[in-house]
Structures are given as C-alpha cells and as structure tokens.
C-alpha cells in the first residue's frame, strides 16, 4: 500500500496529490515544472508538505495531523536523482557502499556482487564518477540506492539523459528490478511511453491540477 496524500504551496501554484495504490510500481507523468520532482522530494523528506500524509505499507513517514515527520535518513527511501549526484571523491565501489553502512541493521535487499552483476558495472568499480558516461553514472546511482536497503525506490527521469540504446538498457534493468525486488517504486517521467512498460499505474502531474491515483 502506497499512500501519498499531500499539499504544498509553491509560489502561486499548489501541488496536491491523492494517491492510494496497492500496486507496486507507479509512474508520475507530466511536463517539466509541473511538480513531479517536488512530490518525490516530499516522499524522501527533502521538502516538507504543508499538509498531508505519506506512508509505505505500514510505515508512516509523514503525517501533519499527528506531527510525524521522519528525517530523510530515517525514511530509508532510495532516491535516484535526475542528475546522478555521485560523490566525486569516492570510487564507484565507494559510492555503492556508502549507504550500506548506515543501514546495516536492516534486511538486505540484494547483495553487493549481485547488484554489480545486474548493472554490469564490475569493470568500473575502481573508477571515479567523473570518468563515467551518462548511462554508467545512472547505473551506479541505481546501485547505490539499492544497496542502502531502501523500503521504496524513487527514480526521477531515469532515462532522460540517455541515448536510445542506453534507454533500452536501463528500461530492461528497471523491469528486472520490478520483478525481482519486493519494494514499491515511484518513477517520474515527462514521457508516458517511457514508463508505461514498467509502471502498473500512472498519474498525470500538471500545474494546478490535483494528482489522483487509485489502484
């Protein structure tokens, strides 16, 4: 069960969502500037809704009525940002392992070697992020999020920076993740055709319109 019912005023516009879904993989689709990233930031705890409630399965992350607002590090939300945000002073292996230490108490989702194999990044482990291509960075960012043992995974425009061949590769990978992992995923994209292959349900995000999704 994914519940994202929030409201946040951003300048003149208001972002409002009413998402309650049993489905595991959701997509938020809409033009840029519509508030998709803001919704992901609110789920991850990087932005605070004016009002609302966010819960994944039976874990409450935010509830304005009850005064619940977990810090980002307590939420265990794996977040793959639109720009990969890899740590430039760590190797690829260091980036991948960064989140594993803090979350050692939690159940392992996938093992390090397994992630490296899935993502095909074994030959990159000693490199610095600056030496990677866009697609390679994206894969490392996905691996880093997975290895932090998240309760859910957020992906912001995971395909937008990639060329056609790389897109296909990441799409296949996301499909495999969806089938293999038991955690919910929320994808954001400005193109519906990019994500409809992966998501079981999608909602339109447009400025000034409430985002509604019931599955």
């Amino acid at each position, binding site marked *: 069960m994914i519940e994202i019912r929030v409201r946040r005023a951003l300048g003149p516009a208001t972002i409002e969502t009413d998402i309650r879904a049993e489905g595991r993989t959701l997509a938020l689709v809409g033009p840029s500037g519509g508030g998709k990233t803001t919704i992901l930031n609110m789920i*991850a*705890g*990087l932005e605070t809704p004016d009002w609302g409630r966010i819960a994944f399965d039976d874990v409450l992350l935010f509830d304005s009525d009850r005064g619940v607002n977990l*810090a*980002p*590090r307590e*939420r*265990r*939300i*794996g*977040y793959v*940002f639109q*720009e990969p*945000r890899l*740590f*430039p*002073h760590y190797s690829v292996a260091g980036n991948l392992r*960064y*989140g594993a230490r*803090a*979350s050692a108490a939690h159940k392992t989702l996938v093992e390090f070697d397994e992630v490296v194999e899935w993502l095909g990044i074994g030959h990159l482990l000693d490199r610095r992020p*600056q030496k990677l291509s866009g697609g390679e960075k994206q894969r490392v960012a996905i691996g*880093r*999020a997975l290895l*932090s043992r998240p309760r859910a995974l957020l992906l912001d425009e995971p395909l937008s920076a990639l060329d056609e061949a790389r897109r296909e590769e990441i799409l296949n990978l996301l499909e495999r993740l969806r089938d293999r992992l038991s955690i919910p995923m929320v994808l954001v994209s400005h193109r519906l055709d990019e994500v409809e292959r992966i998501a079981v349900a999608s909602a339109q995000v447009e400025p000034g319109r409430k985002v509604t999704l019931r599955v």
Partner: protein
Amino acid sequence: MTTAEQTAVLLSLRVASVGALASLPFAIAVAYLLARVRFPGRIALDVAVHLPLVLPPVVTGWLLLIEFGRNEPLGAFLERAFGFSFAFRWTGAALAAAVMGFPLMVRAIRLSIEAVDRRLEQAAATLGASRLRIFATVTLPLALPGVFAGLILGFAKAIGEFGATITFVANIPGETQTLATLIYNTTQDPDGAPATWRLTAIAVVIAVVALAGSEGLARGFRASAR
C-alpha cells in the same frame, strides 16, 4: 645570523604553526556553523569572528591581556586549574597569532563549504547518513582545498603578527620575541640596519616558501579531483 636572531626565527615558526594548527578545528566548526546552520545569534557570531580583522591589533592584544593576564579571572583560573598560563609566554604569542588569523581562516573555509554542492549532502541523507557522517564524509573532504588555503592564510598572518603580540606578551628574547617584534627592535637601534636587512630577507624567504607550498597543494588538489 646571531643567536638571538635564530631564536626569534625559530620561535616565530613555532608560534605560527601552533597558533594556526590549534585554531584550525575551531575555525572549521565556526565556518560550518556560519555556512550551513541557521541559529539565533548567527550574526553575532559572524561579527565576533571578524572583530580581530577590523579592530586595531593593539586593542585585540589588550583585550587578551585583560582576559588572560595572571591576575585576571580567566588567566588565574587556568593557572590554578591546569598550571597553564598565556601571560608573557610563547603560548600567549601563539594565542594572539591564532586570534588574529582566525577571521581569515574562517572566511576561506566557509567559502569552500558554501561551494560544496548541497545536493550531494541531500543524497547522503537519503542514503541514511547522519549529519555528522555527512560532514565527515562529504562536506569536509570536498572543502579540503579551502581548509588548506585557510591554514596557510592563518599561518602567514601569524608570522607577520605584531600589534596584538607585543601588547599581550611583550617582546621578551627567547620567550615572546618573534621575527616581527625583533625587527621592530632592530629598526629602533641606530646600528640595527644590517640586522634588519638580514631578518627582512628571512621574512621574505618564509613568505615565499609558504606561498609556494600552498600553490603546490592547490595543484595537487586540482590534479586529484580530475
């Protein structure tokens, strides 16, 4: 070079190194607070840190004297509790040098912390890192060039410090007589011109070495960041 001159040069190096290194952790802490934390009294802290930069050094030296003099409350307490004193000792010269260099260190470090991409810190937070761990593993390593720049600036300021030092701990050969305060003496001496020239040359050498060292470090950082 006479023995007195050698003693003064070595003392200057010791005073400046100890002053800069001992104040570095505080400078990093204050720079982080000013760059990243919103708290009441932030502006007051900012002003207090910058005061030694704008006050006449004599005033700073006098303020140190009325705090840490042997008969002043704070100085007497340190002496009683730890058997430690700043008054008219080389440790006092190091304290004066540290206070005078502090604003420069904080400014350099603060700028480099502010330049660290906050989005990387956010990413670390979503990966479960605590504030302390984010600071130690992301913010500080990425701000290191600025930390070293601050250290060099603090050291350079400490080598040249005169007003606060002579006011606070006087000009005692072998204890508080630094390169700067010794040069002051030789300029007052009608026959002091040769000594002044020698000491000036040494001061220039120290300055050039410090600058070359910082430039080399900066290059090293740029190379390793690539």
